[in-house]
């Protein structure tokens, strides 16, 4: 029997009841008295001067309350480099650029008004390829970036990779290209702004970063951050897309200020596809070498990022990409250079895995190629190089718990690596390294929790750690119930209001169960200490002997001495000089901010995994069918098997979509497929015929009950594992994503065409 009442058991999500009954209130459902609807007019060109804008026709539409252009507003810019103006004035640089905005009494009126705004453009030459953008004479996007190359660059070096590669017994290299995909949250973006007393702002948002958002909204709009309150309805998916602040959110505020009425902007699905940022596309040139015994000698990567017209988190994804390259295996010599180039394309933001799926797509294919050249089994080759507990990697990551070898062995065994296979069938494996104990990308990686015990023994966990659908609030409730020895239904999690919850850096880096879980744990220990202090004299016990179970505080030495928690709470509250029991904690993990040298222990522990797939390719259609999928993860400790399975199943669907079907198709900067019919996400029938999940519990000493983060980890190895399986099936290596049917078919034709003359 498990030593735990909740940890490790299947616990339904605490928000599931509202969601299965239709009672959950999403942003789309929010209507405030007097609320107006905002719409945005976007650029008709990839690159153009705006010669003139005539907004007068828009006002002829009944119900229009405000129309704004860049002329009417004074704001700062948004974006990582603050290069993205809220409304574009003299010039547009991509089709998604915001040119004007309308507030009206209905969505239809606002849309009609937008369509009547007359904008005269003078088209400019545009550029849609980063290498063309760097060529002499290319159109310049921003004065700050000569040659369109952005000054924010990555340069990491350990040892001498060039010399090591030159003297390696075997080397492999290639240029890998990854494409545009998008998050496809089922709920499209929304923002609802309401101006209150003394110009204060109530902002309803599905953001992943409510507290950083306060800073940004303040900087951009001039409203003091102390007067900005962010509130959060139920969030219909995020996956990284809501990690930044975007112009539409500021526009909702500007329209609310202008009209004096609440304004809600809700994207259509077409806008969601065409106007939200993407996963960062990359061109990765990578080389790797090993010695005769199959020990890695060096890795070298040069990465060019198509930055698009503006800069969001995409430019920072090499940070995490490098971690997998430097630290999954023992590599003595590493060099990594990455830079971003402005183009008139879409810009990119955070997306589950944060650059790591792209890097792993390259590095894990080269692992297979090196193993083949060295004549070593691909699993054995990985095992020989796999990192182990106690290692310190070139980036100074301190590997504490690490179950990578167990993951590799289990995945290989369960997929049947090395067993005979049918024609056009193949197996592939890939490892994965990711942050698992937070990620210090800001001056604090912390999370605050207030735990309030009421007169009925109910515990309210108030925190800034938002729930975006992953089940992190259920994990927090489980940790609280377990630690307090109380029932789950006596715990509530309130994480939807910056006026209530203490600060949290944001929902990213797979950090919430780990970081917020630790904060909950510490706040509950504080509650327990307070209960012990009050209960000890009442029970005539030594406070040190008091333990918590069955919603009671009990003397471990004398079972007859016990008191129900609700009774303790009331006894402490309703007496002379009464008090209330409120626990609090702020957990900031023991990890390090990296300097320019990209060294420093960025996470307080690391997640490891191996995925293995068995695919069957139909050479006639080019379609890849995944027959079996095995995912083995070092998760530290399973907190909620239901939530964990769900995270991995979802990651498998997204990762396979990234690998074989999903793709935003652009024609000179204009999106051609802005709907679900043409953007090929996996449907229920497309999922693998069989999925096996296995967990290695390494019991991380820093994790809450030993747990590590997992939510991004489940996606990262998938494109590489599928590419390796396809290479096994067809003898064709795909270095460009996605491996969609038309590309696979074309490659099969090329292979057979090339082979035929030789056979004649």
């Amino acid at each position, binding site marked *: 029997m498990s030593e735990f009442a909740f940890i490790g058991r299947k616990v339904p999500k605490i928000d599931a009841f509202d969601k299965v009954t239709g009672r959950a209130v999403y942003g789309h459902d929010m209507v405030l008295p007097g609320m107006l609807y905002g719409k945005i007019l976007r650029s008709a060109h990839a690159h153009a001067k705006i010669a003139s804008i005539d907004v007068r026709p828009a006002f002829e539409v009944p119900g229009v309350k405000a129309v704004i252009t860049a002329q009417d507003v004074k704001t700062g810019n948004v974006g990582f480099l603050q290069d993205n103006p809220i409304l574009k004035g003299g010039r547009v640089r991509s089709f998604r650029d915001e040119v004007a905005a309308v507030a009206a009494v209905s969505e239809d009126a606002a849309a009609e008004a937008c369509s009547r705004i007359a904008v005269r453009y003078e088209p400019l030459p545009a550029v849609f390829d980063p290498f063309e953008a760097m060529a002499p004479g290319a159109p310049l996007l921003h004065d700050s970036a000569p040659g369109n190359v952005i000054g924010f660059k990555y340069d990491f070096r350990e040892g001498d990779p060039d010399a090591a590669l030159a003297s390696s017994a075997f080397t492999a290299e290639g240029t890998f290209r990854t494409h545009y995909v998008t998050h496809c949250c089922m709920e499209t973006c929304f923002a609802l702004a309401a101006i209150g007393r003394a110009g204060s702002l109530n902002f309803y948002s599905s953001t992943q970063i409510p507290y950083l958002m306060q800073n940004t909204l303040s900087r951009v709009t001039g409203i003091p951050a102390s007067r900005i309150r962010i509130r959060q309805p139920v969030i219909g998916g*995020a996956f990284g897309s809501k990690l930044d602040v975007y112009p539409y959110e500021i526009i909702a505020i500007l329209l609310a200020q202008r009209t004096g009425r609440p304004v809600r902007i809700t994207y259509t699905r077409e806008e969601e596809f065409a106007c939200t940022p993407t996963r960062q596309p990359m061109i990765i040139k990578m080389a790797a070498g090993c010695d005769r015994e199959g020990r890695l000698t060096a890795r070298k990567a040069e990465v060019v990022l198509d930055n698009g017209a503006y800069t969001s988190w995409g430019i920072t994804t090499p940070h995490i990409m490098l971690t997998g390259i430097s630290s999954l295996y023992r590599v003595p010599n590493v060099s990594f250079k990455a830079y971003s180039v402005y183009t008139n394309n879409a810009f990119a933001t955070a997306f589950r895995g944060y650059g790591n799926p792209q890097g792993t797509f390259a590095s894990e294919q080269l692992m297979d190629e090196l193993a083949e050249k060295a004549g070593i089994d691909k699993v054995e080759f990985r095992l020989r190089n796999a990192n182990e507990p106690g290692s310190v990697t070139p980036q100074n990551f301190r590997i504490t718990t690490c179950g990578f070898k167990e993951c590799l062995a289990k995945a290989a065994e369960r997929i049947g690596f090395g067993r005979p296979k049918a024609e056009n069938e193949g197996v592939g494996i890939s490892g994965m390294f990711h942050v698992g104990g937070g990620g210090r990308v800001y001056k604090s990686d912390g999370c605050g929790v207030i735990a309030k015990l009421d007169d009925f023994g109910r515990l309210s966990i108030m925190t800034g750690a938002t729930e975006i659908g992953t089940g992190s609030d259920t994990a927090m409730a489980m940790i609280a119930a377990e630690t307090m020895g109380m029932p789950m239904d006596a715990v509530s999690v309130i994480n939807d209001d910056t006026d209530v919850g203490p600060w949290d850096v944001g929902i990213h880096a797979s950090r919430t169960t780990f970081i917020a879980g630790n904060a909950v744990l510490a706040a509950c220990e504080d509650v327990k200490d307070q209960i012990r202090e009050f209960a000890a004299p009442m029970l005539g016990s030594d406070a040190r002997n008091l333990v918590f179970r069955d919603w009671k505080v009990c003397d471990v030495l004398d079972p007859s001495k016990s008191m129900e928690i609700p009774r303790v709470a009331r006894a402490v509250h309703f007496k002379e000089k009464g008090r209330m029991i409120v626990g609090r904690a702020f957990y900031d993990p023991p990890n390090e901010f990296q300097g320019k040298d990209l060294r420093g222990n960025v996470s307080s522990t690391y997640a490891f995994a191996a995925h293995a797939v068995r695919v069957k390719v139909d050479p006639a259609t080019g379609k890849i069918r995944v027959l079996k999928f095995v995912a083995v993860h070092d998760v530290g400790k399973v907190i909620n098997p239901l939530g964990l399975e769900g995270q991995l199943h979802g990651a498998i669907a997204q990762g396979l979509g990234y690998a074989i079907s999903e793709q935003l198709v652009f024609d000179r900067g204009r999106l051609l497929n802005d709907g679900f019919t043409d953007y090929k996400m996996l449907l229920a029938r497309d999922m693998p015929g069989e999925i096996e999940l296995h967990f290695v519990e390494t019991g991380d000493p820093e994790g809450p009950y030993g747990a590590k983060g997992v939510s991004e980890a489940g996606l990262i190895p998938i494109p590489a594992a599928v590419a390796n399986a396809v290479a096994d099936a067809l003898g064709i290596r795909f270095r460009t994503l996605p491996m969609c049917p038309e590309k696979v078919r074309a490659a099969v034709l090329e292979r057979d065409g090339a082979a035929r003359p030789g056979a004649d």
Partner: protein
Amino acid sequence: MIPIRIAVNGDVYEREVPPGTTLLDFLRDGLGLTGTNAGCRAGDCGACTVLLDGKSVNSCIVLACECDGSEVLTIEGLSRGGALHPLQQAFMDEGAVQCGFCTPGMIMRCAEFLARNPDPTPAEARAAIEGNICRCTGYENIVRAVIAAAGAMKGRAKA
């Protein structure tokens, strides 16, 4: 404006609607039944699925005026007498819910499916939800929930 008489979750409404109003907007804006979600407004994703005279439809591509004289069942009307529908219980118990935005439409689609096929195989359940997109769950626990709900409904029918 077109007069319609429509029964939604057992309550009869007599309203006048503009000819272009979708059933989805009628439910959400006209009746305040926001459990039915708008995912694409193009009939692609199934988030807005409701039962129209017992048949599942994407309410975003059905006009309200076409529903004159019809009975509509939405997620809000699925549980009767305070007891959850076995599908609702199974979606909770089997971890078939994450962000939850697709959940009401998914459950309504499955309710129709189980009414027609009370003893489905997992493959049949998978085929039944092909028109409903979920970005969070990878569908696995949804299929499991449908099978569990079918079992629970059979058990209940026997008892």
